[in-house]
């Protein structure tokens, strides 16, 4: 049994079955294929993802505890790792025992988790500013085109631009609706063709990560 599970053929067979079900359902329809599709992509995908989340959570907890226990770890780091584990387990226990609609969980979510997430996301504007200063330089003609189109779209998005000059809206929209459109479509077509090529290689068992 373990030989079958460890074999290189098993993943290829499973991939073929999945591809045939998904493609068959999309192109040929039918109740049986639709049921198989739903079971495969909804039920099994949820099961695999949830098991993986549990494995991942345990891996993180184990790693944090190992770092906290190591002798050469600094006291501050040890305290932070232990405190993080304690917080994670506490929030998990609150959510599971009291439910996500409880007032305690709502408080934790709205006043601890939500501000933390949003704070880190907000870092993007600082990094975008430094990236703009560092990278948006007209070193050559391509960079100049990038610079001008970037400036036009920036001004189009700024509400104040229409008060400065109405042309910013039109020019910025032109960049987005015409130039960006062409580039996006080209990259989409190329990417999808690349995905088909990768799929063919996987189905032929010629993709290196699956073993040859």
């Amino acid at each position, binding site marked *: 049994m373990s030989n079958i599970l460890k074999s290189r053929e098993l993943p290829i067979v499973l991939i073929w079955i999945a591809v045939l079900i*998904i493609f068959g359902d*999309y192109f040929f329809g039918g109740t049986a294929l*639709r*049921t198989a*599709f*739903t079971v495969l*992509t*909804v039920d099994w*995908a*949820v099961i695999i*993802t949830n098991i993986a989340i549990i494995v991942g959570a345990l891996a993180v907890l184990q790693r944090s505890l190992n770092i906290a226990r190591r002798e050469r770890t600094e006291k501050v780091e040890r305290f932070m790792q232990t405190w993080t584990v304690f917080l994670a387990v506490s929030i998990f226990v609150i959510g599971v025992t009291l439910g*996500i609609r409880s007032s305690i969980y*709502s408080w934790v*979510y*709205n006043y601890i*988790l*939500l501000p933390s*997430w*949003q704070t*880190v*996301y907000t870092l993007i*504007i*600082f990094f*975008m*500013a*430094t990236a*703009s*200063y*560092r990278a*948006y*330089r*007209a*070193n050559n003609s391509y960079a100049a085109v990038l*610079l001008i189109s*970037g*400036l036009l779209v*920036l*001004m189009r*998005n*700024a*509400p*104040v*631009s*229409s*008060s400065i000059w109405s042309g910013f*809206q039109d020019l910025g*929209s032109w960049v*987005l*609706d015409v130039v*960006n*459109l062409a580039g*996006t*479509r080209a990259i*989409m077509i190329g990417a999808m063709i690349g995905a088909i090529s990768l799929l063919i290689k996987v189905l032929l068992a010629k993709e290196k990560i699956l073993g040859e």
Partner: protein
Amino acid sequence: MESDAKMSIIQKIGYRKMIYLLVLVATIVPMIYTVGLPVVVSKQTSDLYEFIEKLPPNSNVAIAFAAYAGMYPDAQAATRAGLVHLFRRPLNIVLWHNSPDGPMLLGGELKYVKMGSRIYGKDHVILPYVAASEATTSAMGTNIRGVFSVDSFGTPLDQIPLMKNINKATDFSLHIVMAAAGGNEEWAVRQWNIPHRVPIGAFTISIVYPALIPYWRTGAIVGMTNGVRGGAEYESLVGAPGPGLRRTDILSAVHLLYVGLIVVANMEMLKKKRSEK
């Protein structure tokens, strides 16, 4: 001498920290001193508004609420205005969650929605969370009951009056994706619009907006909003001022700061090139 002293201060602080400080000022000052600049409504936003406004009464609208907590402020204004608009119109709404943060965030937004004479189960239903993926979007398109058997309160779908005649994409007049972080709109186009011809609307974050323009041009997406600015535009159309219109000044200030930084950087580069020659 004076310029040398100034340069040494900048050199001491470092250009990165100077920029961070400028960004901080550009966000805080407009919060305190608001001007309330008007917003020009873009075609994409007005198309979405017009489409929803012209839906016949008792049309069924599907909403995939895909908000993630971290980036939600970008789409919050549009989402709130969109929900106000949709619930104001005599439409039947079926909403489901495509993110684990959705149930918590939706509760906060529905406080701003006037339910009026709406009765849960008759004209609106909230389904639970299902992991967002193209496969689940496709599965929802052909058999909602294959994905959900109960609503978010545990009531079997067959016992909900609104859901008696709704089970697949073709039962809907419009499918809206709200506050998604990217991907959900394209899945909706591929799995609801192309096979079933259901129009798609998107209240989206600004990062995703340029990637959806090809779909808007072909008509697969009937309209979409662009982050905070799109939210401000939609709020002005709906007549429900909210976080979008409050943030237009901050948006303008930060955008102008970015433009200023780019101009300064290029001037420095030109100066350096000339001095090298």
